[in-house]
């Protein structure tokens, strides 16, 4: 009765590249919320970076008729039809970290990449001044990384026209490629003041190059790995912006669960005649954490996972 799961009521979290550590704390948040309501959870998806396989795994999830799926759709449009079909057959779908806006999913939980980029830009300006040189590494084709980079660049152009973008290299999360690219950027731009990196894998290589060249460059990046964490502690990386993955999973579950239990809610609108789910949450920002020397110890994922079940 009330907001509680029936025995066996199951919620699935479906992602692509399911071995990626990013999902680990998200799933922990998802699971913790589910436990609070007595629900079961499954971590699903495809280990590959392959949309056909993710769609197949999503459709296979449906065979089990779960109450809801928290979905990270690898692409938005291809999932419209599968999502709508799932909802028709009684499974509620909420998207996270990537959206399928034209589908009937009831909610979307994500980090605000623009806010991250804006914060990073302001921090860079605060540290090296309003006129200086900066460079970015990027990962074209991956939308959240792309957004972090492009919005930082346009924010700088709009607000700090004297900040000069001197290098822009694709490194695709490969630390060795990042090492090579950073080394070259440093060579070509002896006055480089700051480096913005949209993910942690490239940051590891970039730090190695900066340290080797003994350059005085401010490094900021998004996401976190144990190695960049240590570099933050050692002062080699200025700070990292880490999306609040726990909140993403927790809110993701809440939104899915609430959509599946929408019978508790009778809002003042047309949902009964139009037939949509009354628990619509267009957009939830899960926020991000700023990791610095001071708070770094709280962001050791391995320490966090000590004694917890990853699946």
């Amino acid at each position, binding site marked *: 009765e009330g907001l509680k799961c029936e025995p066996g009521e199951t919620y699935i979290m479906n992602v692509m590249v399911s071995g990626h550590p990013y999902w680990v704390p998200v799933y922990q948040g998802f699971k913790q919320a589910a436990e609070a309501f007595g629900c079961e959870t499954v971590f699903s998806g495809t280990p590959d970076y392959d949309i056909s396989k993710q769609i*197949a795994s999503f459709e296979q999830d449906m*065979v089990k008729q779960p109450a809801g799926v928290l979905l990270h759709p690898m692409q938005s449009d291809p999932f*419209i039809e599968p999502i709508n079909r799932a909802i028709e057959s009684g499974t509620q779908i909420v998207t996270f970290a990537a959206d399928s806006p034209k589908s009937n999913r009831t909610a979307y939980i994500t980090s605000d990449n623009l806010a991250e980029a804006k914060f990073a830009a302001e921090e860079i300006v605060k540290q090296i001044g309003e006129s200086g040189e900066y460079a970015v590494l990027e990962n074209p084709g991956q939308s959240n990384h*792309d957004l972090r980079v492009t919005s930082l660049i346009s924010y700088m152009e709009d607000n700090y026209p004297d900040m000069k973008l001197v290098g822009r290299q694709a490194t695709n999360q490969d630390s060795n490629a990042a090492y090579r690219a950073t080394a070259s950027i440093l060579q070509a731009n002896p006055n480089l003041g700051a480096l913005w990196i949209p993910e942690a894998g490239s940051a590891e290589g970039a730090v190695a190059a900066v340290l080797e060249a003994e350059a005085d460059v401010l490094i900021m990046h998004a996401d976190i790995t144990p190695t960049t964490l240590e570099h933050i502690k050692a002062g080699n990386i200025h700070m990292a912006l880490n999306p609040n993955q726990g909140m993403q999973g927790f809110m993701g579950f809440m939104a899915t669960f609430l959509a599946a239990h929408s019978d508790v809610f009778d809002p003042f609108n047309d949902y009964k005649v139009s037939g949509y789910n009354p628990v619509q949450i267009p957009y939830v920002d899960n926020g991000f954490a700023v990791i610095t020397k001071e708070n770094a110890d709280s962001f050791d994922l391995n320490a966090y996972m000590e004694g917890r079940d990853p*699946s």
Partner: protein
Amino acid sequence: MRETGLIAIILALFIVMSFASPYFLTWVNMRAMVMAFAVEGIVVVGMTILLISGGIDLSVGSVTALAMVIAGWLFLNGVDPWVASAISIAACTGIGAFMGFFVTRVGLHHFIVSLAVMVIARGACLLGTGGRPLGLYTLPPEFKFIGQGSIGPIPVVILLFLFIVIGFDFMLRRTTMFRKVFYTGSNEKAAAYSGIQTKKVVFFTTTLCSALCGVAGIIYMARFGSAQPTFGIGMELNVIAAAVIGGASLKGGSGTIFGAILGAVLLSVVSSSLALLDVSVYWQDIIRGSILLAAVSIDHYLVKKRG
């Protein structure tokens, strides 16, 4: 038949799975499984023919993505989607001809030429989209039909797939034109001595493979209603693996489309089964690789035993 062992292995997997999971033998699951490899299966056809002729193509993933990007870009710029698709397939065919030129005229190895083209085509995808997927939900429904529609209970994608597979399988077995592909791959010199223009044959198979990537790209576009510049990364290994599991030789001269498709089925069934059984992701790859190795070993043993 060369493929008997493979069929037995797949059947065994089916039997095990239908006991392991009540969902396995459902219509929805079967459809999802076939849909997951049908379009890639079209590329497998092209790759198999190319392998038989003694070539190889690492660019299939990029070229498939480029097909989506070209057609999508044209459509967004006002071109009729059917015309855009035709142009895109023609462009992919041109890429194949470009590779064929470097292989047959300049004399480079397929591996290195297609590797370079893989990088170039991926770059072209990025350039054409600015790295962001193109949303194509405005594609007209009659176009989307080829990717999303069904005729009766059978998705159009699967019908297209079967049409291409059966057509090429028949031609490869029975037509004089495609027999030359075998001769060329088996011993290029012997084929040339018999008057076969082996360079033309290799040029043809190289071009055909890219053209089929173009077709696959268009179907993907209709199916997904979008064009993703990063689509198909790593596809080449999957596709080659399917052909090799199915009995194609990397040295050229042997292989069948039927076998290659069975190879693709095997890979797909294993992936789907692991997902269906909720095997931990941390174990999935290990199991997947081990099953692959075991299946190929068993098949090899059975083929050898039969002589």
